[in-house]
């Protein structure tokens, strides 16, 4: 792993793989967690898989692992909550620390951070449900549609796997899409729709992070965008690895991805989702601090293209747990 700056894990470790939990991405998390546990076992580590519930702290104290791998997606697992507990218990863990997790989980916070750094992200407005319930924000929807143009993307601020996202073509359909997004989070975002190619940039490492080959996801017809079904149904999406890009474009995509990763203070691993518009300009949509590691996920595909087996990838990420966090 030239340039990665991480070593392999020294010796046999007791790794606690935290998975499941209560988020809507529970099933995805079970899948990721099972694969991570299997990979670590294959490498000879002692693995304790833990389906996260209210007994978590007690079990972690009993298990007393050398290191934790949080294989949870969405609220509770990816938002800094579990990370905080592991900090309190003094258990090193792979992946982003508490504050990076909080920033990345909230797409609105992420976008504000990006804008401050001059990084390109589609224009947007965000609302809490209180704005609608108490301040009559619905009357602003037409103004937003005028400002940002149609179609618009409506998405919950904190939700993964594209859940609750819709692409709205007509202003009169906005309220319904907002209600739908508000079912997933108390805060929602209206974002300028940028039509283009969907790229995923996976990054590994903390001090000297390395960008893995860019993956392009091409959803099959019948999907407006790379939605939940396209993500987790084999055969619903095709992938180009590495994505076929002009070298200058690829370099720019890698550069802004890495800057995003650093700006948010990420550690261990992460995946930046980008739209490349018709003029080959990249726009950053979000960063996932715990990217999916299922059979149909993008990061393992990127690792494979870089010559890293799934086991290599997981071990590399776990090794970063023993380094200081970036934030």
């Amino acid at each position, binding site marked *: 792993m030239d340039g990665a700056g991480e070593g392999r894990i020294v010796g046999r470790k007791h790794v606690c793989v935290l998975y499941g939990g209560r988020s*809507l991405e529970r*099933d995805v998390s079970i899948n990721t967690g099972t694969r991570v546990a299997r990979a670590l076992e294959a490498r000879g580590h002692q693995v304790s898989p833990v389906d996260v519930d209210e007994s978590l702290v007690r079990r972690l104290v009993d298990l007393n692992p050398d290191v934790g791998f949080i294989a949870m997606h969405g609220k509770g697992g990816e938002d800094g909550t579990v990370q905080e507990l592991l900090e309190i218990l003094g258990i090193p863990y792979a992946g982003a620390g508490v504050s990076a997790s909080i920033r990345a989980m909230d797409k609105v916070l992420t976008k504000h951070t990006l804008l401050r750094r001059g990084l390109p992200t589609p224009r947007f407005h965000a609302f809490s449900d209180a704005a609608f319930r108490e301040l009559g924000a619905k009357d602003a929807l037409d103004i937003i549609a005028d400002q940002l143009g149609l179609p618009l993307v409506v998405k919950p601020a904190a939700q993964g796997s594209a859940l609750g996202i819709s692409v709205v073509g007509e202003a009169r359909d906005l309220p319904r899409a907002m209600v739908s997004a508000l079912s997933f989070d108390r805060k929602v975002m209206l974002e300028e729709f940028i039509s283009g190619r969907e790229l995923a940039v996976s990054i590994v490492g903390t001090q000297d992070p390395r960008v893995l080959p860019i993956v392009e996801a091409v959803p099959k017809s019948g999907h407006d965008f790379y939605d939940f079904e396209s993500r987790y149904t084999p*055969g619903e*999406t095709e992938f180009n*690895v590495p*994505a076929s890009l002009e070298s200058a474009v690829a370099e720019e995509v890698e550069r802004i991805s890495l800057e995003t990763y650093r700006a948010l203070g990420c550690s261990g691993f992460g995946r930046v989702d980008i739209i490349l518009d018709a003029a080959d300009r990249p726009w950053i949509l979000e960063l996932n601090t715990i990217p999916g590691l299922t059979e149909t996920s993008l990061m393992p595909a990127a690792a494979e293209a870089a010559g890293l087996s799934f086991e290599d990838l997981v071990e590399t990420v776990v090794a970063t747990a023993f380094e200081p966090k970036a934030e």
Partner: protein
Amino acid sequence: MTKRGFDKYEERYAERTGVMRSSAMRDLMSLTARPEVISLAGGLPATDSFPQDLFDRINAEISKEKRALSLQYGPTEGFDFLKEDIAEVMAAEGTEIDPAHVLVTTGGQQAIDLVTKTFVNPGDVVLAEGPSYAGALTTFSTYQTEVIHLPVDEHGLLLDEMDVILDRLEAEGRWPKFIYVVPNFSNPGGMTLPLDRRERLVETARERDLLIVEDNPYGLLRFEEKPLPTMYSLDTEENVVYLGSFSKIISPGIRSGWLVAPPPIYQKVVFGKQATDLCSSSYNQLFVHGFISSGEWREYVDRLRDIYRSRRDAMLEVLEQEFPAGSTWTKPVGGFFVWATLPGGLDTGDLLVKAVEENVAFVRGDAFYADGQGTSSMRLSFSAVPEEKIQEGIRRLGRVAQDQLDLYRAMGL
């Protein structure tokens, strides 16, 4: 650059697999299965009420006297003694049959599969109530059927509306292969087709040369009044195939159901079953036989009725108090399910996400349509949850629904 999917067999799969999709978001299954969630979603029978001593006696008798038989292949049609038992069970609902016309199946679901396999080519039309049993819809779509839903009211099928659809299909030169109906306390509707509509449906089948597939897994679980005649018993022209099941009166784990078909259809379906699994489990058939021939099944079904009646009462009572004004729901006289519809075009898919946050689950209405209808409805199952939990679950649901309605209003919807 490599172009890749994640499934190397992708190019080889049969076209029919194209309709088999991940439904992770649809039912949030693993999330709703968590112990802290009050699940009004699954239509699970209360198997914990099956008497242990009876269970032991049946097993002991099989072990002592029928061990070899229970471990052996059986006839494709099912054991004759079980076919006699099935005739006895159907007689309890007032339907007389010839046991020779009974085919024992591996659950009622297999009966649906066999009938569909026997009749449907890709692109054929099948008629079903809207809403209809989701498991049947899955089977229909696997056989690449076009499902046309027939409108219902709180009593089930609307026959005038059905006639209009049949006329239209006839004008288009299309002929439905069959009409699939669950006449008693339907899943998910909880509706029961009144006698006059049954008679008229059978009459329509005669006039229009239509085949009725009558699925009656819940019929014996009637909480009040006398059973209505089955369409099979009303029919004199061999226009009805009847599907039955032991899943709700013994156990779904025993995977035992049956179908009763007129002789020409019967032969075709038997061939279909041969190709599917040769015969249903001999052991399970012997278990069912032990249960029915003991005579204790009548008492057990009475007990189940008491359990489910009390749970239904609990659900209906609290729905009245807790659901937002403008909501409607069915009042089933048997079975497992209440079908509720919320006002204001409220989307129950969104509502489910919020409900799960409050640790209560249901099945969203569009799961029971092949064409995306039902988005404001939900199926609430009272079969597997004790009364106080049902009431707590409905209270939470009512709260979440009201909150969602308030948000709709704030949005000008």
